[in-house]
């Protein structure tokens, strides 16, 4: 029988449930299982109720599951809050004083066992060991993973290994029967990654050398990963005083000739829109990651959503060409950010990569190989003209792209301004010049459109289609699989390159099929785009805007109701 188990661990902020999740992920990876772990936490440093939900399977995991097999209650309220998600044959792991009355409960005095092992701080390791034991894995596997995790700290390693032993002993003494999965240590089938890591890694693969940012959830993790990579690759990361500074710093770096990255979330992106305009009119490449969270204003700081699509499309005043890319998976983040740098340089335009809390913070086993794109490496600037005095940074060309030199790297002077300007970069209010410059910038659009990846298609021949974008790929795809098992004739069209909108084969498919919009916002922003650009209308829509990851079950139910009725 196929393995598909979900473990949910609830605890207070500061209790270390992320470490529990991380260790469990490593155990799964070491045993050749696929997994996907989501973090759900409140915007606070201590206390509150947070949880981590880990789905384990012997085939690739696309989405979190809604039903829980093993519920781990470390804060005394997890059972109460999530008890209804527990399957009938599910097990509960909790502290003795918080034991609910039902079968299948294992009460463990984590604190006492941890103290016996040598430190109260090893409670989390005890919990990991108990989970792993209940899932049917051997102590050796767990010991190896824990030993590796604490490899650099001999003192910690020793007491944590004792905690593992205590956890396993506790399960065997209880006589409680858990699951009988095939756990065997083997060559891992992939890498343990989250979106933050693949985005940062992709930036490095693209030769990004400068990072500037202002901390904001959920984007901070991306820059934290970049800082870690700066230990291995040439990279300087500066924490700016605000997002205005961050975006203008990366524009300054790009102007000087270095690829640079900034990452933020909606509120910070709102501040960056001014700087985005400067990059646009000075035709300086710019890559911004907007990791979406629900708004407006502070909104739900630690939660997820897809509410910024139209904002991103129109951010900054007046008109200029831009790319908006929305990667679909943790692995796709790696490819997308490399493309973002390549496209920003090639067309000398801003590129916004739209991700969200879900994609950035979801950890999973990435089995496909992350490939450094042949286009990833930054290209050297063109040769300056023989007579440097003839160089014009904004020379009018047929495709709108002018030769971009770097300041102080040749005799040719590089002149740029945020005002409208002549081809040589001086301020101009001339009417003809204004028209020529607007048209020059927009002349890039036809070629930019050709760069766009078509939507991802899955059973696109079906009568009904779910139409979605960005990080919801895995959830919608799983929903399609479930609906097809229920004999619905349904497929999916999933957009990843949002702007310029790749028109074909979208136009043909959407005008010939019945389709439902699936978005994590309340008004259907992709729907608005499709209506405006292609003149197509959905037969219905499924919106989720509660800040939680898109629920497969909800998509299935609502789609079935719409199609069935």
């Amino acid at each position, binding site marked *: 029988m196929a393995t598909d188990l979900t473990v949910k661990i609830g605890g207070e902020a500061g209790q270390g449930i992320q470490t529990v999740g991380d260790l469990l992920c490593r155990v799964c990876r070491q045993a050749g299982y696929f997994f996907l772990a989501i973090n759900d936490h409140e915007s606070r440093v201590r206390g509150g109720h947070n949880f981590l939900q880990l789905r384990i399977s012997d085939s690739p995991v696309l989405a979190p599951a809604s039903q829980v097999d093993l519920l781990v209650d470390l804060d005394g309220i997890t059972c109460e809050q999530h008890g209804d998600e527990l399957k009938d044959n599910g097990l509960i792991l909790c502290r003795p004083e918080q034991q609910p009355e039902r079968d299948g409960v294992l009460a463990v005095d984590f604190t006492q066992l941890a103290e016996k092992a040598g430190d109260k701080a090893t409670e989390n390791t005890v919990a990991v060991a108990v989970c792993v034991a209940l899932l049917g894995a051997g102590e050796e596997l767990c010991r190896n993973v824990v030993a590796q995790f604490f490899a650099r700290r001999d003192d910690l390693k020793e007491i944590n290994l004792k905690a593992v032993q205590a956890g396993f002993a506790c399960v065997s003494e209880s006589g409680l029967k858990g699951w009988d999965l095939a756990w065997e240590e083997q060559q891992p089938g992939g890498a343990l990654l989250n979106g933050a890591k693949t985005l940062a890694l992709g930036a*490095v693969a693209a030769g990004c050398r400068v990072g500037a940012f202002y901390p904001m959830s959920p984007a901070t993790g991306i820059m934290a990963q970049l800082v870690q990579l700066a230990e291995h690759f040439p990279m300087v990361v500066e924490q700016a005083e605000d997002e205005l500074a961050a975006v203008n710093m990366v524009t*300054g770096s790009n102007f000087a*000739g270095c690829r640079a990255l900034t990452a933020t979330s909606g509120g910070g992106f709102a501040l960056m829109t001014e700087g985005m305009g400067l990059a646009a009119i000075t035709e300086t490449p710019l890559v911004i990651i907007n990791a979406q969270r629900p708004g407006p204003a502070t909104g739900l700081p630690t939660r997820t959503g897809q509410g910024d699509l139209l904002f991103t499309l129109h951010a900054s005043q007046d008109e200029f060409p831009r790319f908006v890319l929305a990667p679909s998976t943790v692995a796709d983040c790696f490819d997308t950010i490399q493309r973002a740098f390549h496209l920003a340089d090639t067309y000398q335009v801003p590129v916004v990569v739209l991700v969200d809390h879900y994609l950035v913070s979801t950890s999973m086993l990435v089995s496909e190989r992350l490939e450094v794109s042949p286009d990833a490496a930054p290209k050297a600037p063109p040769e300056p003209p023989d007579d440097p005095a003839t160089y014009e940074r904004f020379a009018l060309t047929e495709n709108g792209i002018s030769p971009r030199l770097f*300041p102080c790297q040749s005799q040719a002077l590089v002149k740029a*301004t945020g005002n409208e300007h002549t081809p040589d970069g001086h301020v101009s209010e001339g009417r003809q010049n204004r028209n020529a410059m607007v048209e020059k910038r927009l002349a890039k659009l036809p070629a930019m459109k050709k760069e766009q990846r078509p939507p991802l298609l899955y059973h696109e021949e079906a009568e009904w289609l779910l139409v979605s974008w960005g990080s919801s790929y895995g959830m919608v795809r799983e929903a399609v699989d479930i609906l097809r098992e229920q004999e619905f004739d349904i497929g999916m069209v999933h957009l990843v390159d949002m702007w310029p909108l790749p028109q074909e084969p979208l136009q043909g498919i959407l005008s010939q099929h019945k389709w439902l919009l699936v978005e994590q916002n309340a008004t259907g922003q992709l729907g608005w785009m499709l209506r405006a650009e292609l003149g197509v209308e959905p037969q219905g829509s499924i919106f989720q805007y509660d800040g939680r990851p898109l629920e497969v079950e909800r998509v299935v139910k609502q789609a079935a109701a719409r199609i069935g009725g």
Partner: protein
Amino acid sequence: MPTIQDYSNNFENKWCPGCGNFGIQQAMKKAFVAQNLSPHELLIISGIGQAGKTPHFLECNFMHTLHGRALAVASGAKLANHELNVVVNSGDGDCYGEGGNHFIHAIRRNLDLTLLVHNNQIYGLTKGQASPTTEEEMITSIQSHGVLNRPIRPLAVALSLGAGFVARGFSGQPKELSQLIQAGMDYKGFSLIDILQPCVSFNHLNTMAWYKERIVDVTSLEHDTQDHQAAFQLAMEWDERIPTGILFQQDEDDFTTRNPWLQDGPMLHRKYEAEKIRDYIDGLYK
């Protein structure tokens, strides 16, 4: 050897006749020549306002950026290539108002660049509203009952933030100003030169004559430029006497020297090594 002429271009100048910016422009050209810099070896980043237009009227590499953001763009350029010679032209509204946060943090960051603030105590480009340095009670079209807010004392702010090079110049003394700019460019770290200048169109209080009556060169005051407390007192002086020259100068390690990631040369010149990246990725799958 570069000459003053190398820095001249024929782009139409748009400043008012008699504008203090001409004196600053002249002092800049002199300083660049004295620094033995050719126009292609210089990058000017400017903000918005009459000061922001300065690089258009010079021959050099430049980016004329956004209101208040010049220091941020300049900082990014230096992160990418710390060997660049970067001068920033800003104004009192641009730097102390719209860009106030960047001003504060650029001082803390201490990148090796020279900030010239054209301080005419008024908004010129938008036609005469109060700036952060406009005198209290001065009447403008907007502050019709007189300015209510206290003026900022930029040199004192800079000193309080630990700035290592703090100076005040005067557009009516281009020779002395040129020497200040040179000293600022020689200084390894962030250098601030607040430059008093008349605005002939909109500031009828702080005129050329008003400044000339008050300014006094610090070298005539037996001032020790390493004495932080004394510098702070001079920075707070205003109504009776306005000290000009270098108020404070102290060597300290700049951003690049302190930054562990910049010890192997400018980021711009660092090699791209695809193999190294592939090896790192390989490690993640083991």
